[in-house]
């Protein structure tokens, strides 16, 4: 990649657009989550601020911005304050490499998938930092859970995505998208259903969403790693959760649902539509299931998903070799 002025300007513009996207996403998704939860539970959800509560999240974020950040006694100041930033910051870079549409990618790299997988691990670091620095036992347990959970889930996730990379012969997300162009049954979800199954389950584990929201686990750990956070610190952790949700939804759209390839008129709108649908699915799941226990979570992963992922990888390799 040549470093010309044009490229730098393009990169900066892309980063700016991504920041706007992430903030907008959090605002909209929090509203959607509350509204969907309301409908599922047969209540109206946010209703008062704005039409059908659309501005509720804006009002909430103003409140969170204005609130004092309470530092718990004998906490690690630097870590405590930097953890939320650390949770949010790597996300900006990840969104650079996602091909939203044929002409819409912040930064085209041929190792996009690898970059994404590498950077998603950073969020775990932020959770550990936050949980440790809070000097709170609930936070500590939450952070410890988060570490073993993400270690456990990243391996099947990588195995599942590796099968895709085998099939497309590339780690470049643009290439993977192009390989799915044509018609709907060329989407990877039909060609790699097992990989998709593993991917969906690991998504919930990676994003710490129910039924795998053990690091937060409010009925056991009150708030888990963000028990002590208030104001903007809490808001950033919250944003990070929705951002990682959006990330896995974009990944699902690009890797399994053909990205910008639609049934008709290809374009970036398909990516966003698929992303939105996948996020709605995640919300729907959250408001349906109880939480799994911690040992069960590890069992699901090490005893079922890991062998399944290996099997899938092996079958893919054999099939590719034979045909």
């Amino acid at each position: 990649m040549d470093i010309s002025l044009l490229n730098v300007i393009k990169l900066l513009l892309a980063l700016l657009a991504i920041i706007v996207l992430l903030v907008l996403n959090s605002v909209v998704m929090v509203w959607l989550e509350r509204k969907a939860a309301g409908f599922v539970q047969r209540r109206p959800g946010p209703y008062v601020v704005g039409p059908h509560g659309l501005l509720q999240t804006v009002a909430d974020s103003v409140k969170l911005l204005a609130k004092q950040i309470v530092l718990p006694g004998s906490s690690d100041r630097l870590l405590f304050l930097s953890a939320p930033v650390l949770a949010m910051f790597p996300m900006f870079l990840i969104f650079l490499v996602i091909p939203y549409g044929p002409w819409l990618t912040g930064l085209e790299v041929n190792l996009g998938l690898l970059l994404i997988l590498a950077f998603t691990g950073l969020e775990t670091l932020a959770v550990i930092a936050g949980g440790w620095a809070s000097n709170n036992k609930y936070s500590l347990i939450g952070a410890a859970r988060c570490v073993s959970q993400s270690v456990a889930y990243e391996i099947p996730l990588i195995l599942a995505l590796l099968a895709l990379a085998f099939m497309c012969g590339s780690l470049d997300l643009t290439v993977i998208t192009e390989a799915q162009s044509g018609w709907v049954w060329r989407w990877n979800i039909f060609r790699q259903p097992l990989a998709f199954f593993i991917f969906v389950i690991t998504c919930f584990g990676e994003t710490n969403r129910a039924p795998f929201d053990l690091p937060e686990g409010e009925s056991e750990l009150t708030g888990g790693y963000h028990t002590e956070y208030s104001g903007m610190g809490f808001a950033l952790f919250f944003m990070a959760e929705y951002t990682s949700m959006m990330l896995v939804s974009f990944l699902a759209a690009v890797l399994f649902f053909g990205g910008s390839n639609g049934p008709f008129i290809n374009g970036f709108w398909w990516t966003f539509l698929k992303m939105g649908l996948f996020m709605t699915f995640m919300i729907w799941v959250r408001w349906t299931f109880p939480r799994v226990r911690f040992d069960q979570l590890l069992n699901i992963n090490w005893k079922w998903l890991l062998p399944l992922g290996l099997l899938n990888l092996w079958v893919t390799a054999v099939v590719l070799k034979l045909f």
Partner: protein
Amino acid sequence: MSNLFVNPFHFSTISENPADMLGDFYSLNFEKGRVDPDSMILNLGPQHPSTHGVLRILAELHGEYVLRAEPVLGYLHRMHDFMGQVKTPYQFLPNTGRVDYLHPVAWNWAYCGALERLAGLEVPERAEYLRIICCELNRIASHVMWWGAFVMDLGGFTPILYAFEEREKINDLLQIVTGSRLTMNSMRFGGMGADLDDRFLQKAADFIPYMRERLKMYDRLVTGNVIFRRRLEGVGPLDEEICRRYGATGPVLRGAGVAYDVRRAEPYGLYDRFDFEIPVAESPDCLGRYLVRLREIEESLKIVEQALARIPAGPYKHPKAPKVSWKPPAGEAYFAVEGGRGKIGIHVVSDGGKSNYRLKLRAPGFSNLSLFAEAARGTLLADALAILGSLDLVIPEVDR
């Protein structure tokens, strides 16, 4: 005099480690019994999402395993026993609805029954039927609320709001008879405080098939759910022996396989005229207790159905029922009813004076909670909270 010269800024009991400064009598006492030097002592509550009220639990954790746990009570102690001794019997009546906010009608009944037994008062048949209808509807509401709260303990948030739908409908019904939606106080010595009307009968008749449909939905949404089942199967087994030692009653005891129900064992009211079963769990774990409660809802529906079909006409209160300024005769009486959480017993002693000489409330929640310390030993933190949820505690009742 030497005390005057002690440096007021020197606190000898406080060590330099700030973590050691924290803790009150209970936690310091709990810390003395440490099993493992590397353990972590976690203070759950009094404000904690899973304790449903102001219960406090001290737990010694090794990783996620609970080595030792100890409930700390008394954050909602209101001296109901003593209030019953300073107020006249009639004045104490509203208190009974406030002991257990989820099943107030049973407490009403226990107190009225105790004083009726003491004074040998008669209750008209219609009033007995009314009591049974109210008590069973209230039991359904109590169990349904527990169902929602229990699933919430396990992390599923939606069921509690479905549970509230049923509770709303039952509250609408009970409001017609009792006038209030929470701390109901509808019974009087020798009958009921108010009669029901046709609207009630019609609404109640509509409610029974509706509730049966909803129970099927509960089964599909929660009972059949694989995550839920695996969270509960084999978790927190409480056998007959531990229940006997701690005096656990109600669904906890029936979950252990003992078919003990006050409605059958020492029938009160007109329960001996009704046809219902006493559900018993096949396994003594959390799932067993869960299934017992769900089946109890069905049995209660059966009782309500029979009562609505057979309710006779007549007065809802005995014409010679005592007035507000009533003084019970000297003597003593004990009356037990089956509440949503177990055996509610009220022992009243009167010396013929204005107020009771002695009043003792036996709360089932207190006995059920007592076995938690033993049951939680060696379980995972999440399992310990599932066991706590499966005991169906109402803290105001535990502390009284």
